[in-house]
Structure formats: structure tokens, C-alpha cells
């Protein structure tokens, strides 16, 4: 297994995506191309530049500790693939 296969598997494992063997090669190629293209940023030496993590500069957007109505159990569970006794049912968690 090449390093590329390995990191692709590691990333796929983190992302909980199964990659079929036939897609693996294409994905490695495509992502390689995209990352190569992203590598142009490494040419910029800008250690002091602050980051922009938001769509616009904001701070302290807060709400008061005041209750608002919750949704009904029916609404909360309406899209659940499986439910039982007012809860979402899933395969057993070990």
C-alpha cells in the first residue's frame, strides 16, 4: 500500500466513507491534483497575517437565557429511520 493509499484510507476512515477499490485510483489522482493546486499557498510566507475564520467580523453575539418552546416529540422523531418508545432507535452501541 502506497503512502497515498494509506492517507486516503485514514481520511476516509475519519470521514466515515467507504471507498471502493475502483474509485480509489481516481480519487487519489483528483485529490492529488487539487492539493497540488492548493500548494501554491505554501509559497506565501505570511506568519504574522491574522486568520479570517468568519464570513464577516463579529464578536459577542449572545442570547439571553430565556426559554423558547421546544418542538413536539413527533416533530423531532418524524424523520427518524427507526424509533421506539419516544426515542430514535439504532443498532446496539457497545
Amino acid at each position, binding site marked *: 500500500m502506497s503512502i497515498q493509499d494509506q*492517507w486516503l484510507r485514514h481520511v476516509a476512515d475519519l470521514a466515515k*466513507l467507504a471507498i471502493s477499490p475502483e474509485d480509489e485510483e481516481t*480519487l487519489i489522482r483528483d485529490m492529488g*491534483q487539487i492539493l497540488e493546486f492548493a500548494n501554491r499557498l505554501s509559497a*506565501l510566507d505570511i506568519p504574522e497575517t491574522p486568520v*479570517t475564520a468568519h464570513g*464577516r467580523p463579529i464578536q459577542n453575539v449572545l442570547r439571553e437565557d430565556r426559554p423558547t418552546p421546544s418542538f413536539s416529540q413527533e416533530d423531532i422523531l418524524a424523520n427518524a429511520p427507526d424509533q421506539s418508545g419516544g426515542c430514535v432507535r439504532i443498532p446496539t452501541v457497545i
Partner: protein
Amino acid sequence: MQPWKMPAHALKQLYLSREASVPEVVTGMFAHIKQTEPAVDAYLTLCEESAAAQAQAIQKRYDQGEDPGLLAGVPMAVKDNLCTRNIRTTCASRMLENFTPPYNAAAVEKILAEGAILLGKTNMDEFAMGSSTEYSYFKKTRNPWNPQRVPGGSSGGSAAAVAARTAVCALGSDTGGSVRQPASFCGVVGVKPTYGRFSRYGLIAYASSLDQVGVLSQDVEDCALLTKVLSGYDPRDTTSADEKTDDYLAGLNQSVRGLTLGIPKEYYREGIHPDVRKAVEDAIGQFQTLGAAVKEVSLPHTEDCLPVYYIIACAEASSNLGRYDGVQYGRRASGYRDLSDMILKSRSEGFGPEVQRRILLGTYVLSAGYYDAYYKKAQQVRTLLKQDFDEALSQCDCLLTPVSPVTAFAFGEKSGNPVEMYLTDIFTVSVNIAGLPALVVPGGQDASGMPCGIQLVGKPFGEAVLFKIAHAFEQSTPWHSLTPKEVAL
């Protein structure tokens, strides 16, 4: 008379003067949709019954002498990544094929409160990831101007519906050009407002720091009208702006004499199709004729936009799309061994290849050991890109740029090489990175008669200036009044 073909502001006048009734318009619209949809396929879900009921209710209020709202009786389409209460909302993904939200997105609430009639939900690239609407799990939407061509994307369904007049106007969303590029490809007006101008509450997230709800319409006046309806602070969205909203209609029909348009020199580059270049040059000429000044400006980090965009958008997407795991909603695969296998299978079956590719890329750039080199670096360059725009916009009233280097391309033409596909987004993604408002207005046609828009980029919360400038251009050029011949209009 076919009033359902008219822009919202004109239709509204017909209602007020009793020359048309809402039920009659809505019935006419659905007849037109039935005739046109097979050729265009703009919609994923149609709401004929509820639309008819809404029409009756609104008409009743008109009959009682009320003005039921700014959009009362205007038939509208909504992109299928905006939550609609009790109406299926799929993001054009197999993952959400059967997802029915228990709530309305803020943008949907607002148009409904002003009396808009919801016609249905429009097709898009899955989770808004794409530029052609080819990445919909359900179907391909065709460009009403030529069924061999894509409508653009990701709001391709909304743009095609407005172009084909199967909706008077529509809501879309724009993360890297997803309203503006299809507006250009389909010959309609599209606006992506300043980040924070419209609430994102209920817009199913692709990349939270870039996503904005946008509007697609037949003309600038409708666009201004919808912007008026959708603007304003929403305490449910932390990133929503508590800034005063302008009367976006007030500046229409005013002269642009004395205004200055900036032309970013880095945008006139190789790879722009000559027809697109001509449209932009013609627009520059037209503005000069109208008395505006034109000035060259510089956006030095233009080349860095695309990597910055793809790193940030994919990183955020990889996290935003983690919630689709088959547990509480969405697709749950069958035939799994255990919980972990259920999650893996549900996600692998539920997401299409482009979405998976972006999730993988985003996961990679955030993973241990790569964060600083990719994600943090992209956020730093984002700061530089914003500074570029601040500097350029300090020298002019707005920027005038191409929307896409090309006009609507044929199906399958660009889906081979992802980088090549991404490159066509270069003029639009920079605007999302900087969080600025931008508007696309029809500006010409290519040699084959496909529409081509021009983009105006404004200062933060400077939408009113964009409407004023775009309206002057629109009213002095023929482009917005042209309609596709390919569909039965």
C-alpha cells in the same frame, strides 16, 4: 395576457388594479409548468395543492381591499436546500430523499409572510457542490436557452425556472457563485448579498462562512424588491447582520453619472472566452455612455482565491455534513453489520461522488499535521484577499467583472477534471471569500445565442448602489428582455 410571465413588481400592480387574480395566475403558472417542465426539469417537488390554497387565501385579502404584502400572489420557486415546513427538502441528495423539515428557513418565512406563493422546490447540485446542476442525485436540469447546455449551478433549477418563466422569481444560495453563475448562464438577474445581510437560518449548510441565500429574478427591480423582503437581522443566526437595511428600490431610475466602476486588471486574463470578454467590454462602454467613470484597480491575490476557497469550503463542508450518519434522519442503509457499518454504508450510499470528494478533501486539510499548512494558511490568505477588495473598493463605487470565463457549456463537458471545473469559478468565489455583495445582470450573448451576464461587486452592505447601477445598465440595454426560444413561452 399571460400575467404569470411578468416580473413580480408588474404582477403586483395587476393584482392591485384587479386586472388579474391570484388563483388565475397560479393556475396559469401550473399549466405552463406542466408544458415546460419535461424540457427543463427545474423542479424536484411541486406544491400545486398548497399553492392553490395559498392563492385563494391571498386573493381573499385582496378582495377585502387589503394589500396582503410585498410579494402577495407572486409565484416563487425555492432551492431545495432551504428548509420548508412539511415539504420535502432534499438538497438533491439521496441522503435526504425523504427528509421533511419541521420548520421553515428564515428566508422562506419572510417570503411567505409577504404573501409569496410557493410553487415548489428546485433542483441543484447535491448539497450545493457543483457549477452545473449535473451533480443532482435526481435529475439533470436543462438550460431553457438550449437543452444541450447546462443551466449552471448549483442553483441551476432556480435560474432555469426563472428563465423559463416557470417561476416569477426564485430563492437560491451562493457559496462560491451558485446564484450568480447560473444567473449568467440562464440570462436572469441574480444577487448574492453581503455575508450576513440575509439570515442563513434553515439554509442547509455547505460552507458556513461562505454561504448566503440569494435571489434570482427577471429584472433588477424584482431583485431589489426581494432583497428588501429578505434583509434584516435574525437573532437565530449569529452571523446575521444587525445593520440598517436600505430602501433598495429607492435608487432605481437614477443616473449613474459621477460614479466610478473599478476594473480589476487581474481578471482580464487568458482563458476568458472572447464572447465573454466582448460582453464585459461592451458593458464598460455602455457605462461610460451613461456617464460613469471607469478605473483600473488591482486584486493581487486573485490567483490564490481558488485554493483558499476549496480549502475553506471543503473543510467546513466535511464538518457540516458529518450529521448525515443515518441515525436521526436521512438515509439509513440496509444490510449493515453493526452501528459503525450502518454509518459507513449510509454515508457511502447517500452521498454522490463530488460530495464525497469534497468531504475527503476537507477532512484531509483539517487533519492532524496538515491544519497549519492548509486550513490555517487559507484563513490567513483570506485576510489578504479581503484587504485586496477593501483597497480596490476604496477607489471606486463597485467593481465590474466577468461572472464566468465561459457561457453555458454542454453536459459532461467539464466534469472530467475537477481543477478545470473549479477554475471556472474564479471570478465568483473571491466575492464569497471577502463576504461582499455582488449582482449579476444580463450583459450580452455569445455567438450561439447563449446569454452572458456581467458581475458588479459592491462594498459591504452596499446592495443599494449595486441595484442603482445595474438598473441603469439594464434599462439602457436589451438583454434582460430577451427570453429563450427553446421552451414554450
